[in-house]
């Protein structure tokens, strides 16, 4: 397992190095390796496929432009998610005046990957509940559960203390539980 993690780290380092050298194939490899994570956060944050597309595009354009300056002083994942968080907040600021119909109606777009009607319904409800959380609570929840970041990593990404992360997650958990109380016992 340790060897595998080391190999993965080496591979990532090699890809990042190639990206810094302007290798377009390496950009594609890097994109493929993190596109779903970036898009998922963007979609769950915005609740809107078009906005998620824009956020993701913005993230990768910034990533490709700035990667030459990435020296590995911080973890690549932390750096990437910082870009995602910033793009999410930028998108929210720019579209604040234009609240989507889905948000008003409390209905979010369904994932294009339908596994089953029940799961789809659950996903829709969770996504809707997520949209009721404030962005400062929504982001740590997404980083924690969509990406599996630790409290410490979330604090790094959001540039806040671990205490703040703990507090926001606590609030998020409680709010989700309240919003979806009718699902208790069905999970």
């Amino acid at each position, binding site marked *: 397992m340790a060897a595998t993690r080391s190999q993965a780290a080496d591979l990532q380092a090699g890809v990042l190095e190639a990206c810094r050298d302007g290798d377009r194939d390496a950009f594609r490899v890097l994109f493929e390796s993190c596109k779903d994570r970036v898009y998922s956060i963007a979609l769950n944050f915005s609740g809107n496929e078009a906005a998620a597309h824009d956020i993701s595009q913005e993230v990768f354009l910034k990533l490709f432009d700035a*990667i030459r300056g990435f020296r590995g002083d911080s973890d690549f994942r932390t750096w990437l998610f910082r870009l995602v968080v910033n793009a999410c907040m930028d998108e929210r600021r720019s579209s604040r005046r234009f609240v989507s119909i889905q948000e008003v109606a409390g209905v979010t777009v369904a994932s294009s990957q339908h596994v089953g009607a029940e799961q789809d319904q659950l996903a829709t409800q969770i996504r809707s509940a997520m949209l009721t959380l404030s962005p400062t609570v929504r982001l740590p929840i997404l980083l924690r559960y969509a990406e599996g970041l630790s409290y410490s990593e979330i604090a790094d990404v959001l540039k806040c203390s671990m205490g703040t992360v703990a507090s926001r997650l606590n609030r998020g958990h409680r709010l989700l539980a309240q919003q979806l109380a009718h699902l208790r016992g069905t999970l």
Partner: protein
Amino acid sequence: MNPFRRHVSGKLSAYAGGELPRQEADQIDQHLAGCPACNAELQQIVFGIQLAKRIPIAPAPDSLWLSIREAHTSAPGVNSWRLASAVALPLLIAVAVAWYLGVRQRLYVTRAASQPSAFEAVAIKEHSRRLQGAVNWELETSDIARTRNWVQATSGLSANIPDARPPEDLKLVGAKLVSVGRGAAAEIAYEVHSRPVTLIAARLSDLPDPPREGRMSKDVTYRIDSEFGYKILTWGSSGQAYVMVSNLPGFGQEGCFLCHTAEARRELIRKMNPQSTSAR
């Protein structure tokens, strides 16, 4: 106060998520054993965590890469720094060379030992005719831009005469084409301190006996015409040959102010000494 009696609801998410140090987690265990309120709160938190763990993961659409690639190629992007450096470096070098040639380039002025070249002979003849009023200018103007453009258009030679110059500077009179060697040369007439100066520019490759062209220095030859006492300066630069005839003070170096307008360079030119090489 017994610390275990203080409610721990603020730490329950970290507790449930395994993010607390062992000792702190143990304290919460002890508190939960005797606190129904915090236990109820923990159940709520755990349910919230279960929900959060079901946040749907959505695969990125295929169109994402296409749009990124499109946006990336249409805007300054990944390789913009390379492009910038590819453009900036030669530009920087060009500016540095221009500055060096314009301000700091070494000047070497040597007295001519040989007879005037055919190129110089033409200039002497033209200057004499001008002083006799026997020259018909093809372009008669004091306008610098017009003169510069006319020379370029009619002869293909470059006349690098700056527009911006000190007030009360020299005055342009006119220009015409003259035949020198295998091609056409441009003759430009002007006055410095109301004294006439005649400058002829030709292609080095058109001349049978061209002046030496210094690469990183300007090698100027100075001679005094034996018949009329004109002061004649001749040099080559950037593929062009120049000869300048006048009766200006010194050895006529102020005639160079037509193209040299920077005061630092002018000061250097004023100090030129044809008796020896003139360094910067």
